[in-house]
């Protein structure tokens, strides 16, 4: 394979990994906040894609940056959905067996899937482009501006989330609730409020991923399962409970998938990815990065 082709493949892998990272990041935020997996994360990505399609007419076609302008709108809307999600699918069942939370999120995901089917139809739809313009050509290398925009947006959102959780008072409160909600409540932090905020942030990130992926890869009501699976693998590889691990795991998956598929075939790439997951679960169940004791958010 030529260097040009290899560079092209790596660029694609990075763009794909960046979008997966946003999904995995939201996945870990909820996991750390409430100690449960949100199995609707994939459907929420899909919902973000459809939200972008529904909101696109508000921006119109005259502007040169339709998708980028939509990003805050989609994230805001999905943040509200996230807050609602916490109150519908988490709080009512949180004191029951943990399985109830899993099942509740699965059910919520299926509701979203069927809702999308009813509202938008079964056909795949193309989301708005993040940025207008033809592919950039450097020598024989053709770089899609869309891919560059996906990577830039994902990097900004990942850094922003890290700064928000690490440097702001609200972020610290969210982390405190995630580590010990009773202790946090004792010092005047509202656990319910912080958990609601965690869901809102996680689902806003899922929505952003949906928008970033919707133009290049389209969106259809049945896409959720695929995204959920990739987030799950990313978190397993990167280390459960670690935000940086989720991002690293997602990037590794994106590059691994595209590179192995390009060198061999999709079937081999898929088989190797799941084999890698098995190896990780057997030999390093805590993931690639060192495990942090009770490290949440």
């Amino acid at each position: 394979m030529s260097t040009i082709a290899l560079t092209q493949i790596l660029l694609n892998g990075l763009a794909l990994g960046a979008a997966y990272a946003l999904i995995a990041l939201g996945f870990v935020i909820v996991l750390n906040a409430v100690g449960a997996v949100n199995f609707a994360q994939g459907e929420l990505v899909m919902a973000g894609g459809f939200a972008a399609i529904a909101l696109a007419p508000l921006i119109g076609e005259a502007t040169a940056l339709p998708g980028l302008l939509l990003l805050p709108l989609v994230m805001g809307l999905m943040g509200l959905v996230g807050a609602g999600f916490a109150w519908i699918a988490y709080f009512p069942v949180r004191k029951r067996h943990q399985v109830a939370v899993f099942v509740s999120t699965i059910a919520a995901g299926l509701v979203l899937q069927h809702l999308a089917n009813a509202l938008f139809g079964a056909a795949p739809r193309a989301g708005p482009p993040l940025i207008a313009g033809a592919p950039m050509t450097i020598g024989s290398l053709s770089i899609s501006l869309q891919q560059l925009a996906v990577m830039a947006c994902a990097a900004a959102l990942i850094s922003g989330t890290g700064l928000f959780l690490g440097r702001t008072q609200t972020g610290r409160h969210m982390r405190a609730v995630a580590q010990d909600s009773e202790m946090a409540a004792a010092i005047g932090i509202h656990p319910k409020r912080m958990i609601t905020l965690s869901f809102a942030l996680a689902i806003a990130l899922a929505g952003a991923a949906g928008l970033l992926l919707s133009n290049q890869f389209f969106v259809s009501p049945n896409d959720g399962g695929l995204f959920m699976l990739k987030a799950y693998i990313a978190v397993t590889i990167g280390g459960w409970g670690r935000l940086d691990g989720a991002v690293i795991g997602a990037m590794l998956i994106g590059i691994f998938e595209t590179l192995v598929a390009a060198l061999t075939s999709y079937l081999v790439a898929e088989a190797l990815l799941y084999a890698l997951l098995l190896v990780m679960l057997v030999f390093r169940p805590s993931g690639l990065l060192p495990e942090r004791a009770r490290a949440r958010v």
Partner: protein
Amino acid sequence: MFLKTAAVALTALMAISLTAKAETIPVLVPITGFLSLEGTSQRNGAVLAIERYGKDLDLEPEVTDTGTSPEGAVTALRRALEGEPSAAVASMLGTQMLAMLPIAGRAGVPLLTVSGTAKITEIGIPWVFRFFPGDSVVKVAQARYAIEELGAKRPALLHQTTAYGQSGAEHLRRIMNDLGAPLVFEEAIDVSVKDMLPALTRMQEAKPDLILLHLHSGSTALVIRQARDHNIALPILAGSAMHQPTTAALLDPKQLAGVCAESASSPISEPEGPVEDFTSEYRARFGTEPDAFSLAQYDGAAMMIAARNSGARTAEEVRDWLASNSYDGLAMTYKSDGEGNMAHDAVIVCYDGKSAVPAIKRRYENVSGVK
């Protein structure tokens, strides 16, 4: 006296309600899942025909979503058979049809489908009637057009990993080889794959002169879009999914330049005549554009109703009529080849890069020699 009169009146009312009871024609198709787009077209075609032609016979469609699992299809069929229908419209998904056929065979109910999977008419169950040309017809048209019109000598093939994909790939591989233009590259793609660049990159290293596609709708659009985004300007001759208006809607008309596709028909490409009437009615009823799957299933359901109008009442009589008569449908004339393959014509449509409506470039009639 009063009781006697009431009993007589009640009996008469019951008799009237029984005779007036409409017969339900089950429509068991995938409306959710990866084949939902095609399945919805199939449903719409069947529903339109039954509503349009079945009134006099008091026929009513009853739609059940089979999803995409064989279990879903089998459950839907078992439930539908409880109503003892004289025929059923059955899933276009090959794996579902293969699961449904033995059950329909044991129950003795004809299944009308538009599934392209070759095997469904090859396993020897004489209760299946396929109104969409099978791979042995459309893949011949696709291969011939590739060589005779597009001058392909080094074709590459991307196909789906599903039963549909494998069936079509097998035919294309053999036919292209027989016609002297063997494939120089082949890749199987799962329906969940979104990033087509790895396959396109490896394909380019084989230096093909044409890309043949045999993929479902979403994958077809993804390949074309990503190929054009990366300046791969090779001509593309796709499978029937590409002719669907919903597939074309995913792409910019410029990206469709140099793209052709095989199909049984293309209703939106015919500006006048009975097909245009069908298209107008379809648009008004469903608010969307029809495709070849909807037209084929419309013709299939209409032929079943023609059987009923000709006096066939039981499932066995309907089966016998379908197996031994020909029917002039809107897309083509249908006649069984003895195995339930009813459609024997194909068309090639091409896009001009300016519009999302393709033009019919060539018709291949009676490819399988059954008329």
